[in-house]
């Protein structure tokens, strides 16, 4: 029988996505699920505006949440634009070679805690190396139109399911928006009898 599917919509430009990643990927350790990573374009590249008040609060709030979760945060390089699209392309390649978790965790930390610029080859290559990915394969993915089409399809699907922000987890048609709702998803998966062991 196929494992239950959990879609995980994620943006490399969303600090809340970064906060969600260690616990998000760990769901696949604890439950009999197929966790499908779905990288999407940042809100501002999807034509949605983010007011200044929201941007300011997000930085402050994420710092407090990161401290609470014991995650590094603060040495930031905003990847909006090419940095985001290149990272998304490599994340699709990482899925293909079975290293999505390693890459997403490495990229999140590099962007939000180490001020690494993924728009440069030097920055992105450092992330790929730390995730155990072959640079030539990653570089090919960046210019692969089929890979770009997969990212566009993920982004379109987020809109189609009626959601606006990330991270979002979708299980059995039910949406769980935000890194604050992973506990609720965990409870739902447990109630569905999907716990391992």
């Amino acid at each position, binding site marked *: 029988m196929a494992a239950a599917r959990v879609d995980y919509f994620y943006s490399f430009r969303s600090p809340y996505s970064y906060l969600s990643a260690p616990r998000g990927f760990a769901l696949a350790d604890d439950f009999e699920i197929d966790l499908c990573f779905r990288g999407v374009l940042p809100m501002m590249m999807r034509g949605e*505006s983010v007011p200044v008040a929201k941007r300011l609060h997000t930085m402050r709030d994420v710092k407090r949440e990161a401290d609470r979760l014991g995650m590094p945060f603060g040495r930031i390089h905003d990847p909006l634009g090419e940095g985001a699209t290149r990272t998304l392309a490599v994340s699709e390649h990482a899925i293909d070679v079975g290293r999505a978790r390693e890459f997403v965790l490495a990229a999140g930390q590099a962007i939000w805690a180490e001020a690494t610029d993924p728009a440069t080859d030097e920055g992105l290559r450092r992330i790929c190396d730390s995730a155990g990915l072959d640079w030539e394969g990653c570089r090919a993915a960046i210019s692969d139109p089929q890979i770009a089409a997969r990212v566009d399809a993920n982004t379109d699907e987020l809109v189609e399911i009626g959601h606006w922000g990330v991270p979002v987890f979708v299980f059995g048609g039910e949406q769980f928006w935000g890194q604050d709702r992973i506990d609720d998803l965990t409870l739902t998966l447990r109630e569905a009898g999907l716990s391992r062991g």
Partner: protein
Amino acid sequence: MSKLRDRAEREIGPRVIVAASTITAPARTAAAARRATGRSGRLELYFGFDDPASAFAVIDLEQRLQGRKVIFDLLPVVERGIKDDPALERKRIYGVTDGRRLGRRIGLTLSRSEPIDRQQTAFLADWVAAAPRGSALTRFCAAACRRLWFESDGPVEAERYEELWRECFGSAPIADQAAVRANQKKMAGRGPYETPAAWIGGRWFFAQDRSAQIADWLDQLGWTVK
């Protein structure tokens, strides 16, 4: 865009914001001064009666603040949110799903499956904004939020809430739309753009999701549980 400006926007600006957010000395000094002059701390909660997350926050914070010398300042608003937000309607619908999860955290079951139009509950905001702060108001708000979201469905009947008001205050409510507008203006000035938002000593938090942060900040300010 120049390289310097690009770096300022992508790296320096965000880093400065994050670093500045960790400065606590002015707020702690102000809180100590309040205590030294016999005054209490203050938690301002900006909330909407039409919002299930706000209902959760009112009920939850009323419990969590017990034992702390902190005034629970309940400030209802009607108009708020991101201007021209294209996701407004989707957020209202999702809010009901999310409210069900929040309710479960405090042992309550959401009784509604559809959002409430904000104009349907605006009269409650008009009453509460006009009323004197204190335990009767807190009692009313908590009871009204329970009734609205965890004990009823369908249209909101003002008569039922007027009865509740009389039970809490012993008199009829007075409506004041200008007081609600003043709350909305104050909320915008503090920074929050959506409800429920808790403002304490210069910081604001989304009140439905940041219980641990709120408790930690109150402790840092010296408003500990006695």
